[in-house]
C-alpha cells in the first residue's frame, strides 16, 4: 500500500461543497436568452475587431495571390465565431466548464429546472425541456424555410417575368434549401429523440445533459447566422455550396459555411450524446432486442451524424479557410481542386439523406403497432433494415457525381450500391405490410400521417431507383425530377412522420391534446396539396427543367403554375397546423394525463407530462413494447421493482465490497 501524505480536509471527496446556484439572484442577472444576446453582441464586436486586426497580416497573402475574394471576410467570420461563443457564454454554457477547471463539483441542475416558462429560455439541462425547446425551434425553422419555398414558387409562376431578380431568386433558393437541409436533420432527433431517449429506454437521465443542451442552443445561432445572409446579399450556390462558385461569392457565402458548420457541430453533439445514452443507460432488462423501433432509428441516425458530419464540418472549414486565410483547397490553378469539394461534400451529403429519412421510419414504425393493435411484424428485419441503410449510405455518394467526370469507371459499382440500399429500405415496407395484415386499424391523426408517410416515401423511393440508374440519370440528374424525388422522401417522409409524431406524442410531452378535428383538416389538406405540389415536378424534370432556374420553357408554364398554386395551398394547410399547435398548447389546453392511445410504449407508462425524474425508480423492463394481442403478455416494465433487482443487473465493485 502506498503511503500518501494528504492533508486531511474537512470536505467531501469531491472538493469543497458549494452552495448550488439557487434562485437567489434576480431573473435578469441569471443567464438566459437575454444575457446570451448581450454576450453575442459583445462577442461579435470583439471578433470583428480581431478580424480587422489580422486582415492586414494576411493582406500580403491576399495581394500575392490576387486575393481569392475581394470581400473582407475575416471581420465577418471571426465576428460570427466569437459572437456564437459569446452567445453560449451568455447562456452560461461555459460556467460548468469553469467550475471543472477549478476542480469544483458540478451542481446537479439536471432535474431541477427553475421556473415555469422561463426554463425554456435558459440553458436548461433537463432533456424534457430540451425536447420542447427543439420542438418549437424546429417548427419555427421549418416554417421559415417554407416561406422561402413559397417565394421560389412565386417567381416560377411565369417563365420570363421576374418577381425576384436573378440574384434574389438564388438567395431565396439558397436560404430555403440550406435552412431545410441543416435544420430538418434535427426535426425528429431534436424534439422526440431528446425528449424520449431516456424515457423509452427506462433511464432517468442522459449521459451528457450539458452536451445535449449545447446542441440545441447552437441551432438558434445557426438560424440567425443563416438568415443574416439575406442582409449580405445571400449566397448563389444553393445548399450544395459547389466550388469554385463559393469562393467567388460575396460575404453571404460565409453565413452559409458558418451556419451549416454550427448546425453540423450541433448534430455531432446530439448524436454523440444519444449513442452513449442508448448504449449505457438502458434500464435493466432493456435488451437490444426489446429496444423500441424509434430508438433503433435514433441510434443508427446518431452514428451517421457522429461519423459523417465531421466530414462536412471539415469541408466547410476548408471553404472558410479559402475565403479568409487564402488557402487554395478548391482552386484548380493553385493546386486545389473543385472535385475535392464535391467528394467531401457528398461523402457527408449522402448519409445526410438518410439522417433525414431514418427518423421518419422510426416514428412510423413506433406508431403503427399502436393503431393496428398488433405487434410490429419482423422486429429484427426492421432493425436490420435501419442498420443496413446506415452502413450502405457511406458507400453511395458518387451517385451524385455520375455526370461529373469523376471516376466514371466506378459508376457501375455505385449504381449497384445505390440500388442495394433499396433492399434494407424495403424492409420498412415489409414490416408495415406484415403489421397491417388482419389488423384493427384506427384512423387517428397520427396514424393517418404515418400511412401517408408510407405512401409518399414509396414514390420517393421508387423514383430514387430511376435516379440510381446511370442512363436514366443522364436525363434526370440535376433536374426537377431529383427535386421532386427528395422532397417526396424528406417532406413526404420525414415531415409527415414529424407531424405524426407531434400528434402522437404531444399529449405525452406537454400533457395537452392536439385538436382532433383541426388535425384531420390539417392531414387531408396537407396530404392532397403535398402530392399536388410535388407530383407534377417529376413530369417537369422529365420534360427538361433543371433545378434552381428562374427561367424555363414556355410550354412548362401550366404545370409550374399548378405547382405554385398547390404550394400556396400547402402553406395554408401548414397554417392550420400552426393554429392547431398554438391554440392547443397555449389556449385550449385540453388536459391529457394518461395513455390516450393505449400504447404499450415505456414512455406511456408514466404520467403525462412525465415527472421531473421520468421514473420514480429505475424500472426493470420485462418485455417487448409491441406485444399487442398477446395473451398473458407481461407488462412492459416493472416500474417499482423490489430493492436488489436493479443492483443485481450490474456488477459494481463498490456495492459488493
Amino acid at each position, binding site marked *: 500500500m502506498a503511503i500518501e501524505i494528504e492533508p486531511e480536509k474537512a470536505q467531501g471527496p469531491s472538493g469543497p461543497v458549494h452552495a448550488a446556484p439557487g434562485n437567489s439572484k434576480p431573473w435578469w442577472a441569471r443567464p438566459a436568452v437575454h444575457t446570451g444576446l448581450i454576450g453575442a453582441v459583445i462577442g461579435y464586436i470583439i471578433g470583428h475587431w480581431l478580424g480587422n486586426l489580422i486582415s492586414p497580416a494576411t493582406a500580403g497573402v491576399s495581394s500575392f495571390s490576387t486575393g481569392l475574394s475581394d470581400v473582407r471576410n475575416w471581420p465577418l467570420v471571426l465576428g460570427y465565431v466569437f459572437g456564437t461563443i459569446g452567445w453560449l457564454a451568455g447562456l452560461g454554457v461555459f460556467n460548468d466548464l469553469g467550475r471543472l477547471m477549478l476542480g469544483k463539483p458540478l451542481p446537479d441542475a439536471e432535474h431541477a429546472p427553475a421556473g415555469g416558462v422561463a426554463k425554456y429560455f435558459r440553458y436548461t439541462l433537463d432533456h424534457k425541456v430540451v425536447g420542447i425547446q427543439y420542438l418549437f425551434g424546429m417548427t419555427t425553422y421549418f416554417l421559415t424555410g417554407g416561406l422561402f419555398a413559397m417565394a421560389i414558387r412565386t417567381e416560377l409562376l411565369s417563365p420570363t417575368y421576374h418577381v425576384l431578380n436573378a440574384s434574389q431568386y438564388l438567395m431565396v433558393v439558397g436560404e430555403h434549401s440550406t435552412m431545410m437541409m441543416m435544420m430538418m436533420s434535427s426535426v425528429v432527433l431534436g424534439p422526440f429523440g431528446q425528449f424520449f431517449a431516456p424515457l423509452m429506454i427506462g433511464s432517468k437521465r442522459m449521459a451528457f445533459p450539458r452536451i445535449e443542451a449545447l446542441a440545441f442552443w447552437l441551432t438558434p445561432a445557426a438560424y440567425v447566422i443563416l438568415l443574416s445572409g439575406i442582409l449580405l446579399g445571400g449566397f448563389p450556390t444553393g445548399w450544395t455550396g459547389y466550388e469554385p462558385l463559393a469562393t467567388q461569392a460575396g460575404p453571404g457565402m460565409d453565413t452559409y459555411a458558418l451556419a451549416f458548420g454550427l448546425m453540423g457541430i450541433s448534430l455531432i453533439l446530439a448524436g454523440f450524446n444519444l449513442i*452513449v445514452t442508448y448504449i449505457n443507460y438502458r434500464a435493466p432488462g432493456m435488451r437490444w432486442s426489446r429496444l423500441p423501433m424509434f430508438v433503433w432509428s435514433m441510434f443508427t441516425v446518431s452514428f451517421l451524424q457522429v461519423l459523417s458530419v465531421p466530414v462536412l464540418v471539415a469541408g466547410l472549414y476548408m471553404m472558410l479557410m479559402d475565403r479568409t486565410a487564402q488557402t487554395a483547397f478548391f482552386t484548380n490553378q493553385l493546386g486545389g481542386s473543385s472535385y475535392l469539394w464535391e*467528394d467531401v461534400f457528398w461523402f457527408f451529403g449522402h448519409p445526410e439523406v438518410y439522417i433525414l429519412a431514418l427518423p421518419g421510419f422510426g416514428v412510423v414504425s413506433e406508431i403503427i403497432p399502436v393503431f393496428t393493435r398488433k405487434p410490429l411484424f419482423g422486429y429484427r428485419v426492421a432493425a436490420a433494415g435501419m442498420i443496413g441503410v446506415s452502413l450502405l449510405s457511406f458507400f453511395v455518394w458518387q451517385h451524385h457525381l455520375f455526370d461529373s467526370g469523376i471516376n466514371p469507371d466506378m459508376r457501375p459499382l455505385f449504381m449497384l450500391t445505390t440500388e442495394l440500399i433499396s433492399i434494407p429500405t424495403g424492409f420498412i415496407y415489409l414490416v408495415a405490410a406484415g403489421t397491417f395484415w388482419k389488423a384493427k386499424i384506427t384512423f387517428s391523426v397520427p396514424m393517418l400521417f404515418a400511412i401517408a408517410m408510407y405512401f409518399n416515401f414509396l414514390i420517393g423511393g421508387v423514383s430514387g431507383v430511376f435516379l440510381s440508374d446511370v442512363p436514366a440519370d443522364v436525363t434526370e440528374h440535376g433536374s426537377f425530377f431529383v427535386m421532386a424525388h427528395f422532397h417526396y422522401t424528406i417532406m413526404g417522409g420525414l415531415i409527415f412522420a414529424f407531424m405524426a409524431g407531434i400528434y402522437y406524442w404531444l399529449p405525452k410531452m406537454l400533457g395537452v391534446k392536439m385538436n382532433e378535428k383541426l388535425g384531420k383538416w390539417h392531414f387531408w389538406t396537407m396530404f392532397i396539396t403535398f402530392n399536388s405540389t410535388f407530383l407534377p415536378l417529376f413530369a417537369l424534370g422529365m420534360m427538361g427543367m433543371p433545378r434552381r432556374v428562374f427561367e424555363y420553357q414556355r410550354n412548362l408554364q401550366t404545370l409550374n403554375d399548378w405547382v405554385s398554386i398547390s404550394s400556396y395551398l400547402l402553406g395554408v394547410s401548414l397554417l392550420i397546423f400552426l393554429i392547431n399547435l398554438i391554440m392547443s398548447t397555449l389556449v385550449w389546453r385540453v388536459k391529457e394525463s394518461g395513455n390516450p392511445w393505449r400504447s404499450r410504449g415505456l414512455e406511456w407508462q408514466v404520467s403525462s407530462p412525465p415527472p421531473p425524474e421520468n421514473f420514480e425508480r429505475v424500472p426493470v423492463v420485462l418485455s417487448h413494447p409491441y406485444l399487442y394481442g398477446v395473451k398473458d403478455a407481461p407488462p412492459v416494465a416493472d416500474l417499482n421493482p423490489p430493492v436488489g433487482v436493479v443492483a443485481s443487473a450490474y456488477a*459494481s465493485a463498490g456495492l459488493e465490497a
Partner: protein
Amino acid sequence: MSEATATPPAGLNADMEEAGFYHECALNGSWTASRLAMGGLSFLFGSFLFAYFYLRSLNSGGRWEGSGYHAPSMIMGTVMMLMVLISAGINYAAVQRIKAGHKKAWQIGGVIALLLGLATISMQIFELLNLPFYPASSGFASVFVGFYPVFIIVVLSAMIWLETLLARSRFIPGIAFVEQPPTYEEAFVVQRFQASVSGFTAIWNYLAVIAILFWFLFYVI
C-alpha cells in the same frame, strides 16, 4: 425473468441501488464516449487525409508543391511531433503510477504532459505565422495551413480536459486509489475520476498517433 430472481445484497436500499446503477452507467459511458470521440475525430482528420492524397495525386496546375516550393522546417515539425508523443508517453506512464496509488506521481506527470501539450500549441501557432510559403501557393500549403489549426483546437480541448483532471485530483485523497473509501459516494467519485483519466489517456494517445501520421505526411514524404 433472471433479473427478478437474484438476491439483493444485505443492507441495500433503493437510493443506494439507483446511485450504483447510474454510477455504473456513467463509468461505461465514459469508456464509450472516448471511443466514439475517436471515431468522429477519425472522420474529421480523415477529411484532411483525403484532401492531402487527393490533391497530391491530382497535382492540378502542377502545383501540388510548385516549382519554388520551400518545405516547412523539419526541425520544428519533428520537435512538435515529439513533444506530443512524449507528453502522451509521460501521461501514460503516470497513469500506471496512479493505478498503484501514487497520486503525486501522476500529478507531476500530468503537469508535464499539460505543459508539453501547451508548448506544442504555442510552437505550432508560431510556425503557422512564419511559414516559408503562402497559404495559396500550392495544394500542399493549403492542406498544411488548413490542417494544423484544427489539430491545435483538438489538442487544446484535450489539454483543457487534462487540466480539469489535475484540478479535480487535488480533492481526491491518494489513499482512495488503492483502498476502498469509507463511503460509496467517495468510491464513486474516485472511480469516475479514474474512468475520466482513462478516457483522456486513450484520446491523448490517439492524438499522438495522429500527430505522427501527419508529421509523416507533411515533413517526411
